[in-house]
């Protein structure tokens, strides 16, 4: 009964087929493990890079702490510890490398509800321009420190979109977005309500597209320090400046 199936040609060729399948498997396996840059799955490359970044940020924070101790000792030995640490603190605070606490506002922005039948899905999402409008309104009204989902906004912070995510510094943020700002709570809230572009999020866009948009005043806002670096590559230090 089995005779007509046991053709030597058939058997050999099926063996070859198995071999080809295995080669295919080997190749794919090699791509996604050994060489992340050539991985066919870009999403896993992004995840790897983000893990690396978190490790690097932690290592940097540790090193900075150690370095601080060393510098403080050196300053004390040289007798200039007071002025040195004052200058350093001032620079760090101005740059955004220190956390900040105080009264202020917390603003929640989130993507909207179900898209209407003939609606444009983009209208139901929070965009980078929405976030920049709110942040601008806050700082124009005197906010002293601003963060978005834990990313501190500093002098070199870009806020832009890549696909449907928002990139702040180099971090990928997704809805919902919590924007925290320290300052006079009443003035900050008024600034957002009066801003021609930002206010729309809390009124008509919210009603029409079901966006999440809330402003909450609080007495104890905590703002994260900036986790990146300030290493000028093109700048030469200028003369003058404030004391």
């Amino acid at each position, binding site marked *: 009964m089995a005779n007509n199936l046991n053709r030597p040609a058939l058997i050999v060729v099926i063996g070859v087929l198995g071999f080809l399948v295995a080669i295919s498997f080997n190749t794919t396996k090699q791509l996604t493990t050994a060489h992340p840059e050539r991985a066919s799955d870009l*999403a896993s*490359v992004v995840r790897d*890079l*983000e893990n690396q*970044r978190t490790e*690097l940020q932690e290592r*940097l924070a540790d*090193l900075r702490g150690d*370095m601080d101790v060393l510098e403080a000792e*050196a300053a004390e030995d*040289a007798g200039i510890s007071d002025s040195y640490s004052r200058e*350093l*603190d001032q*620079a*760090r*605070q*101005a740059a*955004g*490398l*220190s*956390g*900040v*606490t105080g009264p202020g506002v917390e603003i929640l922005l989130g*993507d909207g509800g179900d898209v209407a039948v003939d609606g444009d899905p983009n209208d139901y999402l929070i965009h980078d321009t929405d976030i*920049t409008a709110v942040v*601008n309104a806050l*700082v*124009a009204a005197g*906010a*002293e420190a601003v963060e978005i989902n834990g990313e501190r906004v500093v*002098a070199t912070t*870009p806020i*832009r979109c*890549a*696909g*449907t*995510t928002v*990139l702040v*510094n*180099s971090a*990928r*943020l997704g*809805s919902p977005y919590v924007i925290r700002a*320290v*300052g006079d709570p009443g003035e900050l809230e008024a600034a957002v309500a009066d801003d*021609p*572009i930002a206010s729309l999020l809390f009124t008509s866009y919210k009603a029409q597209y079901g966006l999440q948009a809330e402003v909450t005043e609080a007495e104890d806002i905590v703002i994260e*320090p900036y986790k*990146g*670096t*300030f*290493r*000028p*590559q*093109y*700048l*030469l230090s*200028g003369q003058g*400046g*404030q004391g």
Partner: protein
Amino acid sequence: MGVVGELNPRRKLVHLRDESWRRIVESEKAVERSFQEGRLFVSLAAGMLLVGFLLVGQWRGYASLSSDLSRQSDQSLGIIIEEITAENSELRNEVLRLELRMLEAEREGIDRSEVLNEAAKELSGLRVMAGLSAASGPGVTIVIEDQEKVLLAQDFVALVHDLRAGGAEAISVDGKRVIGISGFAGEGGDLEMDGAALAHSHHVVALGSPSDLEQAVELPGGFVSTLSTFPGVTIEVSQEESLMVPAADTIQFIYGEPTTQ
């Protein structure tokens, strides 16, 4: 199975086909019987149930969050990858630099002057980028004419973010330094930045890599292409070797209290 003798191959094949036909007819009758008995109904129902499960799984999988990486286009992922790679290499350099300094400091022993020298250099770099000192270096100047007064505060906000995305290390608008807490307000020709009125012809300076900066504002859909279409608006971007931006106004914390790390 029927009795099959030594038929020649052709006849065997025909016989097989006849057999198959007969079996098809017989199975059709069996189908009717089992249908009446409800067995087919049960297996059909099971099949539909499975399809239902699969449909829901597919539906749910498709409606995932906007931050789900697998739904992003390759181009967006590419942008993100470039960003994070650049950030990581900056972080790595900083880590190496600090580790080196620590090694040297430990070796220096009693002599702390090297440590202090390095610390002073770092401090000055930090002050410059934080806006506490004036800065100079290569970059771009952008001259914007707004005769019809159509530009909004939001347009300048967009410009600043475009420049930062292009790696700007220091920016000034109409002679005022732009830092993290600088905000634009006003519209219809009465623009102001941090409370100071801006004129109708604007002079923006950004320090950084001249080519990167120019590219960042001239991207399709970016600042230059969008705003050049407004009436009375002309924008001119030029790369320069040596520019200056002033220091920012004193940065004070009135409401907020910095926390030590």
